[in-house]
């Protein structure tokens, strides 16, 4: 996705993307994407969970569960590949993270394992 002022919310993305090359994703904010909000999505088992490329600007990422990316077989077959739950290549200050659950991240606040109290 590289639109302007888009909102991606409440989606489930599982098992998307090829292992080679290692730039596929469950949700992607690609060069040219500005002012997008990614919120309350559930993302697992993809090549990368959330991939934010170097040219993305002013992205808000909040309240997502992004875990188990990539699947263990890809992780074992390609241990040197650049795969993660959140792979953020945008310049510092261009992506805003709030209350996400993830385990592996590049330039992202992982691991953050949140246990929410019963409602």
């Amino acid at each position: 996705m590289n639109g302007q002022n888009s909102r991606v919310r409440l989606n489930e993305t599982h098992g998307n993307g090829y292992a080679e090359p290692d730039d596929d994703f469950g949700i992607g904010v690609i060069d040219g994407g500005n002012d997008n909000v990614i919120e309350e999505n559930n993302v697992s088992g993809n090549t990368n969970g959330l991939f934010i490329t170097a040219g993305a600007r002013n992205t808000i990422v909040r309240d997502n569960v992004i875990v188990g990316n990539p699947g263990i077989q890809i992780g074992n077959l390609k241990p040197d590949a650049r795969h993660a739950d959140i792979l953020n290549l945008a310049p510092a200050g261009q992506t805003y993270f709030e209350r996400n659950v993830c385990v592996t991240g590049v330039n992202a606040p992982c691991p953050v394992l949140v246990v929410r109290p019963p409602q």
Partner: protein
Amino acid sequence: MAQRRHIVLAAAIVVTALAAPAWADQVSGTLTRTFVIVEDTDLVGDVVCNVGSNPCFSFGASNVELRLNGFSMTGTANAVTGCGGAIFANEFGITTNGQHNVYVRGPGLIQRFRNFGITVTGGSRGTRIQGLTASTNCGSGIRVTAAAFDTVVEGNRLTRNGASSVGAPCGGI
């Protein structure tokens, strides 16, 4: 007496107008050329798309919606392997085609297209895509291009989409 007849007739017209569904196109079966959406459109059965190197559905007007109503749209990719990593030009399931305020509404399944399942093209504003499942498409399940504005992608399920093209990252959304 005549006045009373007029009142009854007017009431009957109002009731009839309220009961009648708004006009909408209805689609099912096999498509062999692109279906251009110019008014609200309902799938009334599963659709198989065999349209060559073209989109299956293309919006041709703004402020209209495509409702899948629980049915599927199926392209020509392999059910297990998709396209084996390749992408074929223009073989989208649905393109917004630059129209504004169009709505693709689930539930429904968009599968096995040899490019993006849905592409929100440049120039489109206010597109809404909601409640769909996109699977085994050979590009992203849902793609929003750089010159598309104010798109909402909400409550969808994306699985087994993607390609191995170098320099063209893709996947779910």
